[in-house]
């Protein structure tokens, strides 16, 4: 494919200048190192970022994070803000997996305490947290109960005994997006979601038992209650079938709606409607409900994992949320644009909010350090905890990367590899893998992803976030 002309601004910033002939209304700014740029040029992600730049009412540039890779419509790792009056909302800018996100939980255990019982722990978690396709959770909700969860998010689960009040305090938006309307989610969405709370899903969703390998920022680590050798649990999952159905339902309406508003886009997956329109209001209300469902899901999973740890290590073991972030979402936020405060709709598609120290939306314990930014790597490599920095709020609407970013298709990842060998290789490195499917292991092989350390170096080099700690996996549980 033809290489797109990139102008290097500095070691971690590149620009694709606005091209009016393509209908671009603004530039694309790519945050990446030289090494990552070479990989990024290998797929259609930059073209997709250029297409995002055509969205009506886009505010500032179309932004590409260092883990950017080809998605559908928006690239994965794409961020775009739109004006509330003149701009659009694009469900493709959120994705099918609304509020796919990550929750990081610290435990009161050290790696050397867990290692002798790791296999028992993994088997217990595998029993307690359903994963894989078609697996239902143990909880059963009536329609009114589910609608309460869609309205209230993680706090609804906590109020019913599935967690502690502190869990919500350390979740983005406190685990509940205001403005959710359960009645804007279809009955089909609710039917799919009713038995899925507390389930992990499959594909690139996983639960990882980790240990803190290295602390890079002692003060920030202390504020988060973590130290080297400590065991943590990382949960990566989203809104399951409910979110998928919400996106499907609203995308189906977009075509006719766009004709009504005389909107054209270069890629149908960028289908969008004006934010003040009734179609947008309905979608946003349903999206917020699905986001709340995802937070409720991660809350339920935490509750089950607490049970798993207590079963193996006794009732005094503590598991506490460090933070929970979403990385597929569209949120109304207040940002300074050209020196003036404005409310904008920030689409983050495979990107994480990264608010800096002092931001009013942070828990008191994190005001001095900034918002935790959780960056899972590929299976068997490493994950990072960062904190948001001033560069993010100044340049990227408070956004940073969300992971390592894929660099290989699923088919390519399976070629020449077999799941058993990969599993044994990881075990030889001290990492247990328990997966519901063979494909689940192969397609998520470490080689299929970019180097998460390079991604994090670029994020820090660009001033979007700062390193706090690097974590290494001990076990991976997935569907």
């Amino acid at each position, binding site marked *: 494919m033809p290489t797109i002309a990139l102008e290097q601004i500095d070691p971690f910033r590149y620009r694709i200048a606005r091209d009016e002939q393509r209908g671009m209304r603004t530039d694309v700014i790519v945050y990446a190192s030289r090494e990552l740029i070479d990989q990024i040029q290998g*797929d259609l992600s930059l073209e997709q970022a250029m297409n995002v730049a055509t969205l009506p009412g886009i505010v500032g540039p179309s932004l590409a994070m260092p883990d950017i*890779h*080809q*998605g*559908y*419509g928006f690239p*994965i790792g794409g961020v775009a803000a739109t004006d509330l009056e003149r701009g659009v909302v694009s469900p493709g800018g959120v*994705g*099918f*997996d609304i509020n796919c996100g990550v929750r990081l939980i610290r435990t009161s255990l050290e790696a050397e305490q867990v290692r002798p019982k790791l296999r028992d722990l993994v088997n217990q978690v595998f029993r307690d947290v359903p994963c*894989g*396709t*078609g697996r239902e959770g143990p909880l059963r909700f009536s329609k009114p109960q589910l609608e309460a969860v869609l309205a209230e998010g993680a706090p609804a689960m906590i109020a019913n005994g599935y967690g502690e009040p502190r869990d919500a305090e350390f979740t983005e938006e406190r685990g509940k997006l205001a403005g959710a309307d359960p009645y804007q989610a279809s009955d*089909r969405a609710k*039917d*799919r979601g009713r038995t899925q709370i507390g389930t992990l*899903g*499959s*594909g690139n969703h996983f639960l990882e038992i980790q240990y803190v390998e290295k602390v890079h920022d002692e003060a920030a680590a202390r504020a988060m209650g973590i130290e080297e050798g400590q065991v943590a649990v990382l949960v990566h999952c989203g809104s399951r*079938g409910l979110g*998928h*159905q919400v*996106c*499907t339902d609203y*995308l*189906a309406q977009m*075509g*006719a709606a766009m004709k009504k508003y005389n909107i054209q886009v270069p*890629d*149908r*997956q960028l*289908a969008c409607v004006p934010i003040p329109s009734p179609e947008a209001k309905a979608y946003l209300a349903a999206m917020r409900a699905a986001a709340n469902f995802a937070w409720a899901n991660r809350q339920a999973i935490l509750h089950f994992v607490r049970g798993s740890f207590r079963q193996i290590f006794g009732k005094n073991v503590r598991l506490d949320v460090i933070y929970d972030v979403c990385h597929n979402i569209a949120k109304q936020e207040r940002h300074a644009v050209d020196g003036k405060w404005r409310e904008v709709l920030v689409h983050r598609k495979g990107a994480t909010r990264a608010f800096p120290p002092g931001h009013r939306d942070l828990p008191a314990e994190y005001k001095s350090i900034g918002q935790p930014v959780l960056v899972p790597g590929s299976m068997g490599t490493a994950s990072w905890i960062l904190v948001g920095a001033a560069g993010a709020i100044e340049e990227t609407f408070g956004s940073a990367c969300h992971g390592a970013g*894929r*660099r*290989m*298709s*699923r*088919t*390519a990842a399976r070629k020449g590899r077999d799941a058993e060998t990969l599993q044994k290789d990881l075990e030889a490195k001290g990492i247990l893998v328990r997966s519901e*499917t063979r*494909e689940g292991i192969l397609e998520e092989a470490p080689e299929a992803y970019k180097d998460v350390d390079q991604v994090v170096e670029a994020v820090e080099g660009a001033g979007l976030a700062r390193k706090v700690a690097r974590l290494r996996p001990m076990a991976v549980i997935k*569907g």
Partner: protein
Amino acid sequence: MFEILEHPADIGFRVRAATLPELFAEAAQALVAIAFEPGDVAMRETYALEARGEDNESLLVNWLSEVLWLLDGPKLAMREFRVISLAPGRVIGGALGEPRDPARHRAKLIVKGVTYHQLKVFQDRDGWCAEVFLDV
């Protein structure tokens, strides 16, 4: 029969058929083959399928989304698809299969949605062809 199309994050397929209704049936077949192992699915019941769309592309996306709904909502295992009627803007058909049994019907992938990414529905001298990418 279908061919897998590569995508860094997701998965796609290409199907061919002599007629447009057959193409829709083949595409549904491809979707379930990507999501599930072809296995012992008895054709015990017929499940109605219907979709609307303003053009062939949106009609195909909405048709496949209906198949996806049957997979994850009622949780069905489906073996064959038939299109009874395909007119501009509307397709009616059915899926033959049975309620899903986890012991016999092994799932491979969760398909989150049917995308418009690089979607193509076209006719050439060999018949009809469709290329569809799925979010997995």
